[in-house]
């Protein structure tokens, strides 16, 4: 029993159980179309949760990811939007816009990290206030420049990221793979874990704790911007409202996967399992035609149980 519960594949077991539970009773669950829908729907969440994982490993939290999505989406659309975009119609529109979106995410992450690492402000407070600030900035920017909240007529090359499932999948897999390699194979990855385990001991050991913390938030910002690329392409619109409802799912997926809210523990692969499990639950319950409110309640309970299970699992395995 302790081997199963303590196994790093525990959530994958849960995914298989969920699949087996839904398959016989849920109309349309086991079909190519549904799996394609499931896959495309969970990709932005996967990218977001991967970025969040790196922050959680350091013992922090980034609540501003949804604001980064909105701001990045607006920035990108303002650059490449067909009618009033700064580079609208130009062949350079898309690459500049994508670079701008990633830079936006990185800059917001840099701001967050700097406040947390160098000004010693609590991560919860910093990222909560930057959520408000950058959400408002995104709306202001859109209304100021184009007098509308949604910006349309994006280049077909950019929209292909949303229309072609394989392109979105390639981007998400690439981002996740890079994060996995970074955490598992690089010095920065080891430092991220060290800071999460014990920042004081890490500092004494020569780890640049402040720089590592800033780096984690910059990475989280970049990953949020990548999620913005996927969402903006999928909905063919730049909008400050994209991804607003994703925050609980992002943190929930990372926690369900096994990343600890207390820092020092987490893996990209675990987050993949967490995203898969949460997406399976949402998809299955949706196909069962349950009311949306009931689905939200169930997801909340699942995330709470996952968090409790994580605490119990850690104690149980240590005791064994």
């Amino acid at each position, binding site marked *: 029993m302790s081997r199963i519960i303590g196994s790093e594949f525990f959530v994958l077991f849960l995914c298989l159980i969920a699949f087996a539970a839904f398959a016989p009773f849920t109309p349309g669950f*086991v079909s190519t179309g549904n799996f394609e*829908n499931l896959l*495309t729907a969970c990709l932005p969440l996967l990218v977001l949760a991967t970025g969040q994982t790196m922050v959680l490993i350091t013992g922090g939290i980034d609540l501003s990811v949804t604001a980064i999505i909105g701001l990045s989406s607006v920035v990108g659309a303002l650059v490449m939007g067909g009618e009033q975009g700064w580079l609208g119609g130009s062949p350079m529109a898309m690459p500049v816009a994508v670079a701008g979106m990633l830079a936006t995410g990185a800059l917001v992450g840099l701001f967050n990290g700097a406040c947390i690492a160098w000004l010693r402000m609590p991560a919860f407070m910093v990222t909560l206030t930057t959520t408000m600030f950058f959400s408002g900035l995104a709306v202001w920017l859109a*209304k100021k420049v184009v007098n509308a909240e949604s910006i349309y007529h994006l280049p077909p090359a950019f929209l292909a990221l949303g229309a072609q499932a394989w392109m979105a999948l390639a981007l998400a897999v690439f981002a996740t793979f890079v994060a996995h390699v970074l955490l598992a194979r690089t010095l920065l990855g080891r430092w991220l874990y060290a800071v999460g385990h014990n920042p004081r001991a890490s500092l004494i050991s020569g780890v640049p704790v402040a720089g590592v913390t800033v780096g984690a938030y910059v990475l989280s910002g970049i990953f949020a911007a990548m999620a913005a690329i996927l969402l903006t392409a*999928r909905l063919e619109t730049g909008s400050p409202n994209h991804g607003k*409802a994703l925050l609980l799912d992002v943190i929930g997926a990372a926690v369900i996967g096994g990343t600890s809210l207390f820092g020092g523990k987490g893996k990209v692969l675990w987050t993949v399992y967490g995203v898969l499990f949460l997406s399976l639950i949402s998809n299955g319950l949706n196909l069962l035609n349950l009311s949306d409110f009931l689905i939200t309640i169930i997801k909340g309970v699942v995330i709470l149980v996952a968090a409790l299970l994580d605490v119990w699992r850690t104690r149980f395995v240590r005791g064994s």
Partner: protein
Amino acid sequence: MRPRPLRTRTFLTAMTAVIVMAALTGCGKPDAPGAATQPPAAVGQVKTIGVAFETLQTEFWVAGFDKLKAECAAKGITMLEGVADGDASKQFDQVKNFINRKVDGIIIVPKDGKTVIPMIKAANAANIPVVLYNRPADATDARHTAVAPDNFAITRETVTYLVSLAKKTGRKQKAMILMGDLSDVNAIGRRDGFEAAVKEAGDAVEVVARIPTDWNQEKALAGVQSAMQANPDIGLIFTSSDFMFPSIKSVLSNLGKWKKHNEPGHILLGGFDGDATAYQLMADGYVDATGVQDVYWEAEQAIQVILDAKAGRPAPVRIDDKGFAITQANLKEMESRMWGAVVAKNKK
């Protein structure tokens, strides 16, 4: 030499890969056991309709949702439901689920007029008729039908009545408008209708506050408070949706300005939707007028469009809900046509 045991990680990875590959190659076909989708409906027969609402935040949307449910039940149609809570991406997932379930029609209340366009295109690709309920899309060549009110005309009629009352006071009235989410074409139409009526009023009315509420009651409350602080002599308030009346009432009550239409110090109040709250406030004498959109008629039309499409009849691009303004002057005569009055009386 003992054979090496199969490593757990390898086994699980392989198993997961097998399941994913099996699904992606279509080994789980829609008609396999445990994947019990309905068989496709015969030509002309509508068995399932997918209904994707942006929100059920207000009485209006709840009334529309319930009416669609009742209409489907009456016609023996199964209704699949989805509520996106303002998340366009979630709404897209819900629409794609409907498409995967091979529904006979999809009714959408979009988050905004632009993000719904890829959803319509996805349904077009699957040859499923799409109806936009109450909120039209932005200009697009994607095939769909919009059943929506003429927000401009109804609002203009309502505010023109308020202006006529303002003129009777003999003094210039300061006015405030609570605007909705301006990514919603309904909000834009109502704002424009208000501005047009006020412009026609000439010097009788001066707009001193335009509150952007984003269809949020807390923002409405804060906006009205600030506006009344800056302009305590505001004499006319129009809200782009009746669901914000409680916020207005809260502020005016605290200021001692919540008066009936026949009491001194009454502030002219107008709204839009015609919900139960507005009806009760009108019956009690606090609200002077509201623009009524026929939510029940719109629901009936939305389903009829799908029935017609299935029967091979061409679907119009737009069906207009003409609506009307209900005022203190015609309340008794028109209340039977006001859906909010029906809801309010059913509650008693």
